[in-house]
């Protein structure tokens, strides 16, 4: 009887490290419990945005101004909201869940007691976020296409570029969340970073409408780059140089956020 626990065939395997993929796997298992509700809202969000803003508000814009930049408002709006959706999913998955894994459920402390290193925890978490953001962006594009707002096959290329935009923010949001001692900082992030960025990064109107001093601020945000690239690809006005510039800028954010996240989590979990 006593030999059963530690002398079984399964017990004799030599343990090593599961690497980042074991962290991703954990988060996917967690996601399985909420996937239905999450899938519904992934589906509904683009519908509501495009129906309410695109067709409702769009009717007014098209009638009074003749659309924006030569296209109907809904065609202008859809690629922008695609980028916003990627951003919001990215922010959602790298804010409260990160704080929870450190402060509330402390699951990261369980991980760090195994061969996993902070680097693998960060990467494993971000790969999960990548999957989530990709799914949300793909569903969005499908809904937008079904509503007839997509005009070019190039719009398919808007998915990776908006996913990159989401991930560029995800790594920074992760670094910020991993540093915090309570969730006030998260509320601040949503209220004073995510929300204004959503409104003023060219999603709903061209940033040329902003006061001159605000335009450079919009240029600095990762969201504007994702919106601009997404829109250019969707409307078929993209230039190779323009897209490369956006991709380069977003990649720089992503890498900086990743490096910072690893350093912060290391300091947090190992002291």
């Amino acid at each position, binding site marked *: 009887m006593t030999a059963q*626990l530690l002398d079984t065939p*399964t017990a*004799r395997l030599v343990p090593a490290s*599961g690497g980042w993929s074991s962290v991703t796997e954990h988060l996917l*298992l*967690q996601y399985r419990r909420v996937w239905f509700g999450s899938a519904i809202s992934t589906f509904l969000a683009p519908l509501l945005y495009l129906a309410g803003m695109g067709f409702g508000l769009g009717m007014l814009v098209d009638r009074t101004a003749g659309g924006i930049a030569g296209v109907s408002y809904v065609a202008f709006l859809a690629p922008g909201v695609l980028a916003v959706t990627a951003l919001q999913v990215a922010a959602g998955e790298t804010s409260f869940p990160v704080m929870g894994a450190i402060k509330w459920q402390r699951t990261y*402390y*369980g991980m760090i007691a195994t*061969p996993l290193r902070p680097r693998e925890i960060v990467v494993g978490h971000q790969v999960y976020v990548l999957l989530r953001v990709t799914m949300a962006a793909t569903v969005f594009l499908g809904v937008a296409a079904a509503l007839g707002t997509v005009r070019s096959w190039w719009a398919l290329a808007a998915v990776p570029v908006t996913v990159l935009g989401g991930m560029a923010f995800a790594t920074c949001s992760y670094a910020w969340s991993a540093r915090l001692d309570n969730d006030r900082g998260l509320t601040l992030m949503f209220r004073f970073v995510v929300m204004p960025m959503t409104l003023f990064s060219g999603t709903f109107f061209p940033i040329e409408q902003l006061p001159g001093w605000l335009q450079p601020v919009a240029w600095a945000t990762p969201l504007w780059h994702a919106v601009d690239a997404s829109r250019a690809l969707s409307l078929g006005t993209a230039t190779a140089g323009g897209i490369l510039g956006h991709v380069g800028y977003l990649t720089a954010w992503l890498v900086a956020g990743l490096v910072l996240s690893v350093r912060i989590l290391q300091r947090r979990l190992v002291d």
Partner: protein
Amino acid sequence: MAGYGHPVPASPPMILANGLVKAFGDFIAVDGIDVEVRQGESFGFLGPNGAGKSSTMRMIGCVSPPTAGTLTVLGMDPRTQGPQIRARLGVVPQRDSLDEELTVEENIWVYGRYFGLPRSVVKERARELLAFAQLTDRARSVVEPLSGGMKRRLTIARALVNTPQILLLDEPTTGLDPQARHALWDRLFRLKREGVTLVVTTHYMDEAEQLCDRLVVMDQGRIVAQGSPRELIDRYSTREVLELRFDSDDHGDHLRSVDGIADRVEVLPDRLLLYTRDGEAAHSEVIRRELEPLSALVRRSTLEDVFLHLTGRTLVD
């Protein structure tokens, strides 16, 4: 793991610390301790909160680099071989770190995957471990509503998924009711019988007496005594203790009246402790002197008395 259950006498120590120090800024949590833990033994760190036990455990668990001194765990250096060491440790932290949204068995699966064990193995292992932790009928329940004792048993089961050579338990039964504590000790005894090296921290003297073959008493980052529970009691206390409670705000007032009854007297806020070889004889003397305490109790000395003698303070306050 051919070595399980068959301790090799000449084997190197599982854990060896020399002059181990942990400082956080100006605060010295662990102040130069020497520890040697041998294969198959159950080793304890006994001390009050803040004595440096958890800091020591975290250094052994390779999640807290030592500030000074040397430390080897399983013959390796935690500074450079953390992941390799952690692959062979089981850690039961002071506060649970279970994923409360997952089920009991899912918690073991994901944990086994952290160690790179194949999925099929992890599922099989979960069955064995849940049987051990007496949680088989809860395998598919979500963790969140389980009792504290069940969560603790799950944490222990989870820590065994990689068949660790050393199991580190930081305050394993703090916050549990007596029944849950005994159920947990019973599981730990079984592991000990199977030859797992246990390292336990506790501020409960009964836990230390129950679980530990050998222990060190820690206070303010230092080791103040070490030995088996029996040796420590023999060395630092008397066989019996007479506890007297008086209707009085300051029990120090009664010191003079019990003078000469016992070898040594300790004054606590709510009682006097009279250390003597024969508690009944001391009690008779109290009655003969007509001291009339509210209550009088004769008991055996415990590690609590050892700690009180060594530091002048109680373990749990």
